C-alpha cells in the first residue's frame, strides 16, 4: 500500500468508503508522522488516541453502513479552538493547562462529521503574528528550506503556522485555521498548501478564542482546493450561539466545483502592484493571470484606491478589539494566576497579565488600549472604522466589473525565523495583501502557484464577493489545475 499520509482528504474519504484501507490504518500512519516530526514543533498537544478512537468508529460505521461525510479523516486542530477535555491554550502561557468543558462549534461539527483529531496545532500567541514566533510553546519550523545550501529555519507563516507546517509535512491531511488578517492565507502561501477564509459569519466563532471579533473567521487548510471545499462544507453553517453567524444554507461547494471560468471576469487591482516588490511575486501573479485567461476568464484592471490604508486601519481595529477581548484573562476564573506576596486584586491582575501574555500580545493590547482611551477614540478608532467602510466600498465598486479578484497572497516567500522579529512593523507589512479582504469580510483563499528562485512556494490569492465562496474555489481550482504545483518539502526532520 502506498503511503496513506500522501492522500488528500477526498482520497482518504473515498478510499475508506471503498474499503481500500481502514480508518485505523490512516490514523496510525498520521500518528506516526506526528510522532516523528517533533522538531517541527507543529503541535502543542498530540492526541493520537482521539484520532484512533474516531478511526475505530469510522471503521465500525463503514461495516454498519452508517458512514458520515468525513468518516476516517484525521485532522489537526488549531489550538485556538476550545476542545472538550483537551488543553486549549491559544499558544499562551496564560492558558497553559486550561482544559475546557465545552467544544467549539466548528470542531464539534468536524467530530460529528466523523473526523478524528491528531492534536492541537501550534500558532502565534492568541493568533497575533505572521510567523509563529510569538507562541509561548516555541516557534513552529517550516518543513521547507531554501535551495541555497544553507539550512536556515524558515517561518511557516502565521498565525496558523502549526496548521500549515503540519499539512506541508504530511503530519495531517488537513487542519483548521483562523484568519483575522491573513492567518490562513499567508501560512498556506508560505508552505505550498491551500486555505480558504470564508465570508465573515459563515463559520461560527463560538468556542474559538477571540482575537478581533469583527475580523476573526475560521476556515480549512489542506493540500488542494477540493479538500478545502469539503472541509468548509462541514465547518460552515448557522449557529444561534454566535450573533454574527450568517443564517444561510451551506452550499454544496464540492459538488459545484468547476474550473471552467468562461463568462467570468477576473479583476486585477492596480494598487497591489507595489514598488520594489519581489520580481518572483510579480512573475507568479502574471502567470496566474494567464492561467485564468486560459480557463476562459476575461481579465480586467480594477482599482481599490484605499488599499494603502488597510494595514494601518487593521492595526487600530484589531488591537482595539483584542485589548477588550483579552481583558477576561485576569487570573480569577481560569488560566494563570500570579499572586505576588501581599498583592491585592488589581496587583494580581497586573502581575498575571504581565506573566501570562507574550511581548507581541502585550504590544497589541497596549496599542488597542491607547487608541480607545479618552480623547483618542475618534481620531484613531472611529477614523479607522470609517476607512474600513471605504475599503469595503472599494471592493463593492470593483465587484461591479468583475467576479473575483486575483492578487498575490503575500509580498514575499517564507522568511527566516528571527528575520523580522526585531521590527514589528516589518512583520505587519507581510499581511499587506491579505488584510483588505479581512476588513471587508470577504471570502478569500490562497493556492500554491509557483516556487521562487530559492525553491520556496508562493501563493496566489483569490478574493470573492460576499457569500461567493464557490467563485473563489472555482478560480482557485483553475489555477491549481494549471499551475501543476506538486513540489513538497524534502524530509529532513
Amino acid at each position, binding site marked *: 500500500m502506498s503511503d496513506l499520509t500522501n492522500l488528500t482528504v477526498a482520497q482518504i474519504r473515498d478510499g475508506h468508503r471503498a474499503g481500500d484501507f481502514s480508518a485505523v490504518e490512516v490514523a496510525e500512519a498520521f500518528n506516526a508522522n506526528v510522532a516523528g516530526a517533533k522538531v517541527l514543533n507543529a503541535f502543542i498537544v498530540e492526541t493520537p488516541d482521539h484520532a484512533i478512537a474516531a478511526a475505530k468508529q469510522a471503521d465500525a460505521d463503514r461495516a454498519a453502513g452508517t458512514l458520515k461525510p468525513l468518516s476516517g479523516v484525521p485532522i489537526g486542530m488549531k489550538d485556538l479552538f476550545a476542545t472538550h477535555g483537551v488543553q*486549549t491554550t491559544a499558544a499562551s502561557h496564560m492558558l497553559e493547562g486550561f482544559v475546557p468543558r465545552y467544544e467549539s462549534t466548528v470542531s464539534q461539527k468536524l467530530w460529528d462529521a466523523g473526523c478524528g483529531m491528531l492534536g492541537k496545532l501550534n500558532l502565534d500567541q492568541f493568533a497575533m503574528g505572521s510567523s509563529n514566533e510569538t507562541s509561548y510553546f516555541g516557534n513552529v519550523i517550516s518543513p521547507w528550506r531554501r535551495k541555497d545550501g544553507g539550512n536556515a529555519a524558515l517561518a511557516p507563516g502565521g498565525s496558523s503556522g502549526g496548521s500549515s507546517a503540519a499539512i506541508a509535512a504530511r503530519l495531517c491531511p488537513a487542519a483548521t485555521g483562523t484568519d483575522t488578517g491573513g492567518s490562513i492565507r499567508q501560512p498556506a502561501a508560505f508552505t505550498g498548501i491551500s486555505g480558504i477564509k470564508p465570508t465573515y459569519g459563515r463559520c461560527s466563532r463560538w468556542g474559538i478564542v477571540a482575537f478581533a471579533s469583527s475580523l476573526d473567521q475560521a476556515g480549512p487548510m489542506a493540500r488542494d482546493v477540493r479538500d478545502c471545499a469539503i472541509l468548509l462544507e462541514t465547518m460552515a453553517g448557522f449557529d444561534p450561539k454566535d450573533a454574527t453567524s450568517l443564517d444561510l444554507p451551506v452550499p454544496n461547494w464540492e459538488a459545484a466545483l468547476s474550473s471552467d471560468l468562461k463568462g467570468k471576469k477576473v479583476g486585477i487591482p492596480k494598487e497591489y502592484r507595489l514598488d520594489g516588490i519581489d520580481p518572483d511575486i510579480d512573475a507568479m501573479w502574471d502567470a496566474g493571470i494567464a492561467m485564468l485567461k486560459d480557463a476562459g476568464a476575461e481579465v480586467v484592471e480594477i482599482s481599490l484606491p484605499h488599499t494603502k490604508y488597510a494595514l494601518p486601519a487593521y492595526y487600530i481595529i484589531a488591537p482595539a478589539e483584542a485589548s477588550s477581548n483579552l*481583558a477576561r484573562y485576569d487570573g480569577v476564573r481560569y488560566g494563570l494566576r500570579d499572586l505576588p506576596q501581599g498583592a491585592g486584586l488589581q496587583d494580581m491582575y497586573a502581575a498575571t497579565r504581565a506573566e501570562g501574555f507574550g511581548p507581541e500580545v502585550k504590544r497589541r493590547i497596549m496599542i488597542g488600549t491607547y487608541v480607545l482611551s479618552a480623547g483618542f477614540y475618534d481620531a484613531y478608532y472611529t477614523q479607522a472604522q470609517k476607512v474600513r467602510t471605504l475599503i469595503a466600498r472599494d471592493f463593492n465598486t470593483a465587484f461591479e466589473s468583475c467576479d473575483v479578484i486575483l492578487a498575490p497572497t503575500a509580498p514575499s516567500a517564507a522568511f527566516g525565523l528571527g528575520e523580522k522579529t526585531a521590527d514589528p512593523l516589518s512583520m505587519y507589512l507581510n499581511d499587506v495583501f491579505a488584510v483588505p479582504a479581512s476588513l471587508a469580510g470577504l471570502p478569500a483563499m490562497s493556492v500554491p502557484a509557483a516556487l521562487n528562485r530559492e525553491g520556496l512556494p508562493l501563493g496566489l490569492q483569490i478574493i470573492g464577493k460576499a457569500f461567493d465562496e464557490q467563485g473563489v474555489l472555482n478560480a482557485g481550482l483553475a489555477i491549481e489545475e494549471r499551475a501543476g504545483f506538486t513540489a513538497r518539502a524534502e524530509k529532513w526532520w
Partner: protein
Amino acid sequence: MSEYRIKGETGEWEVVIGLEVHAQVTSNAKLFSGAATAFGAEPNTQVSLVDAAMPGMLPVPNRECIRQAVRTGMAIDAVINKWSRFDRKNYFYADLPQGYQISQLYHPLVGEGSLTIEADEKAGIPEAKRVGIERIHVEQDAGKLMHDQHPSMSYVDLNRSGVALMEIVSRPDMRSPAEAGAYVRKLRSILRYVGSCDGNMEEGSMRADVNVSVRRPGDEFGTRTETKNVNSVRFVMAVIESEAKRQIELIESGGTVVQETRLYDPDRNETRSMRSKEDAHDYRYFPDPDLLPLELDDAFLEECRASLPELPDAKRARYIAAGISAYNADVLTAEVEAARWFDALLEAGAKPVAAANWVTSELFGALNRLGKDISESPVSPVQAAELLGLVADGTISGTIAKQVFEKMLETGDGAAAIVEREGLKQTSDTGAIEAEIARVLAANADKVEQYKAGKEALFGFFVGQTMKAMQGKANPQVVNELLRKALGRA
C-alpha cells in the same frame, strides 16, 4: 409656592438632583445567555459558560429583555430608537468576568421621555411636576463579591452576572428630597404596571445612583457628586439631604466640590468618597464587535405598544372622572396590585365613589391589621362587590356593613348569606321605626325643647338614638324622613 431651600451660613441654597435608576428587567433568562435570573440560588449555579466569560464565548441578546425595555420606554412616552447598539465599557473588577460590561453609551435603545410626579402638599410638592428622562439603556449586571467568609480572600458569585438591567437616566430636574422620593416611587409604580421590573428594592431589583449638586437659586449648576447603588426611597432622600448639606458646608468654608463617586453609609447617614478604590477611570467604550446593531421593526414595536396595560396616570384620571377624590385616586393607583383589585371590584358592579372609600378605609385597614398584601386578601373583589351592593340597595347600613365585612374576613362566607343568617337586614318598616322614634322623643323631651328652640345640631342625636334602638338595622334615610316629620309635628 413653597420651594425647598437649604439655609447655609451665607444664605439660601438650592439642591439639584438627577437620578440614574438601575432596574432589573423581568425575564426568565439573562440578557446574553440562557442562565436563569431567579433570586437567591446557590452560588455560581445560575452561571453559563458565557456569563463566566470562558474563552470563545459569545453574547446573543434575549428578545424579552429588549421588549421589556421598549415597553418601559413607551410607558414614559419616550422616543424608541429603532436603531441602537451595544457598547463595551471596559474596566477590571472581580465581579466583571469579561473585563467589560456590555452596555449602551452611544446609541441607547430608548431616548427622551418623562414622567409626572403628583402634587403632595404635605411632602412639600405644591403642584404636579414633569421630570425629564434622558434615556433608558440596556446593560448587564455584575456578579457579587463576599468579603467576610475568609480571612484573606473575597468570594465571587456570578449568579447575577449578565442579568439584564435597564438604566433609566433622569434629567437633573428634581429640586428636593421629596421630589426625588416621589420620582422613584412613581418610576417604580410604572415599572410594576408595565411588568418590566418587579421593583423589589430589598432584593436589589431597583437601585439608584444619586447625582447631587447645590447652587444659589438661579445660578448655573454646581459640580455634582454621584452616590452609587442607593437601594431604598428613604435612603435616596437621606443621601440628598446629607450630601447637599456636606457640599454647602464645604463651599461655605472655602472649599470646592469635586466631581466624584461616593458611597452611602446608612448607619452613619453620610456619604463618603470612593475615590480611594477607583483609579482615574477611562472606560474605553466602543461598539461591541460580537454584536450587530439592534434594529427593531414596526411589528415588534406595535406588539410592545399593544401589550401595555393602562398606566397609573391614565387610571388616576379615569378614577377622578368617575368622581373619586384625587387623594383616593392616588392611593388606589400607586400600587399596581391594588389598582387591579379595585378595577376588578368596579368590574363586578361596585359604584366607584363608595367602592373607593370602602377600599381605602375598610379593606386597607383590615389588610393592615392582618398583615396581608392585597394579593392575599381573604375577600375577593366579587365578594366585596356583593357587600357594597347590599349597602347601595339599602339592604344593610354602612354600620352593619362593617360587621358583615368582619364576618366575611373570619368565615369567608358571602355578604348576603351572612346578612341573612344573622338577621342583619335593615328595616324600612315605617311602623316599627315610628314607634321607636316616639319612644326616643318621649324619653328626651328636654332635648326636643332645645331643638325646637333652634339647636338643630341635636337632629343627629335623635338619629343616633333611633338607630341604636333599632340595633343599626333601620334604613337611615327612612329614619331621617320620619324623624323630621315627627319633630315638625311635636
